[in-house]
């Protein structure tokens, strides 16, 4: 299951939702808002997503991960809106019979999410500037990564 939420991510609740009696391992990844990027002091982040295709493309990613590293349960939640330092921006959890599948599927899912899903991140800097991450036009001006 892939979700987009405007409210804080409750990781404990999400972990419980993956409970499966056949699962012997669980692996999760949390992406947090960091205070620095490319030498700029970051005050907060703003995420935007196009939810219909985040869900559709995200479900494809989960299916691909399951084919490669058969797991029992997997779920991903991405936050949108304004996030403060330390807040959880993305959570991926995988439960599987053995740890290897959980580690590998979790890594595959977060790596694909970062490059495929229509989600955008705007950094708000300490000096009052802001910039969209990965935007080449911005990068050319040294504003953002």
């Amino acid at each position, binding site marked *: 299951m892939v979700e987009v939420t405007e409210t804080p991510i409750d990781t404990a609740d999400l972990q419980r939702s993956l409970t499966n009696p056949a699962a012997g391992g669980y692996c999760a990844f949390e*992406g947090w808002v960091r205070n620095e990027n490319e030498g700029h002091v970051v005050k907060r982040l703003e995420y935007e997503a196009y939810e*219909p*295709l985040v869900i559709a493309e995200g479900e494809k990613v989960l299916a691909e991960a399951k084919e490669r590293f058969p797991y029992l349960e997997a779920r991903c939640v991405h936050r949108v809106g304004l996030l403060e330092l330390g807040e959880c921006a993305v959570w991926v959890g995988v439960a599987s019979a053995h740890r290897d599948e959980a580690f590998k599927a979790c890594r595959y899912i977060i790596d694909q*999410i970062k490059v495929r*899903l229509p*989600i*955008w991140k705007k950094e708000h800097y300490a000096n009052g500037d802001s910039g*969209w991450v990965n935007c080449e036009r*911005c990068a*050319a001006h040294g504003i953002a990564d």
Partner: protein
Amino acid sequence: MKSITVRYFAMFREHAGIAEETLSIDAATAHDVFEHTRERHGSAEPNGHCKVAINDQMADWDSPVSDGDTVLLFPPVAGG
């Protein structure tokens, strides 16, 4: 000429100053639509790291566009 509705996201929306517009343009592919909007809004962002969707389906830059299509222009993504 085709009637194409274009939706802009994130940086593209801010740059264009609008979230959506319907254009009457001579475009065969999604890339043609992208180039048209680049000129229209004076954007310097190349399409290399951008993505495109047509009618809510992820597409390629050489995907054909038809009259009445909605083309979604996604600037470089940065989830996580």
